[in-house]
């Protein structure tokens, strides 16, 4: 099965870099412009969360992205080994954020869920978080 792995540091410039790499990979499924930008946006949300929440901007830490293609579906996972999420159901609610002081909108998961076909979040406090998303193309 076709698959790529991309590991980047928790640096702000990797928000753009990571979403661009996954978008470039997704072109194998011949997506529409709207589908590409949906994927970019969702990946940007997940990578930003790893930087801001999981690692609190510690640029030494790694974010691991995988993308694969199964039929006409793109799968993307974004994995960190950061602080983890104590209550995933609460975290995924619209406008819920633990960093209002940093002007987080609490809409990251909302956008991932709306822009992708499926969204799944696994997390263990103190071990890290994995976000798995898929998007059916076409």
């Amino acid at each position: 099965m076709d698959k790529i792995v991309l590991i980047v540091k928790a640096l702000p410039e990797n928000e753009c870099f990571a979403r661009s790499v996954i978008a470039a990979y997704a072109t194998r499924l011949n997506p529409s412009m709207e589908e590409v930008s949906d994927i970019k946006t969702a990946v940007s949300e997940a990578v930003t969360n790893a930087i801001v929440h999981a690692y609190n901007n510690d640029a030494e830490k790694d974010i691991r992205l995988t993308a694969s293609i199964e039929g006409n579906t793109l799968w993307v996972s974004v994995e960190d080994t950061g602080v983890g999420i104590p209550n995933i159901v609460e975290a995924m609610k619209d406008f819920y954020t633990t960093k209002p002081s940093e002007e987080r909108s609490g809409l990251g998961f909302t956008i991932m869920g709306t822009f992708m076909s499926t969204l799944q979040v696994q997390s263990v406090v103190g071990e890290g978080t994995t976000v798995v998303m898929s998007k059916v193309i076409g």
Partner: protein
Amino acid sequence: MIHYEVSKGVLNIKIGGELDHSVATTIKERLDKVIRGGGYEMVVFDFSDLQFMDSTGVGLLLGRYKTAKSMAKPVAIFRPSAPVDKVLKVSGIYSIMPKI
């Protein structure tokens, strides 16, 4: 890319390129300073050259909305591109700062 000017009572703030967390953290204070400076009746975010925005951009807009509100000035959004419009719609932000 960020550019602002007051013209006919409107503080026009044009943000081009891609607006994400890496950009938002660097322009936040600058924008607040301009908004607090006064000399206008309305704030307009010109997104006609903005190719990308994620939810961090929504947080940035809500923050500037609060600053403008403290000056009792309304905020609007001008010409968002399709991908930016989609994020803004999902966020529900148009109910407080209309698209013009």
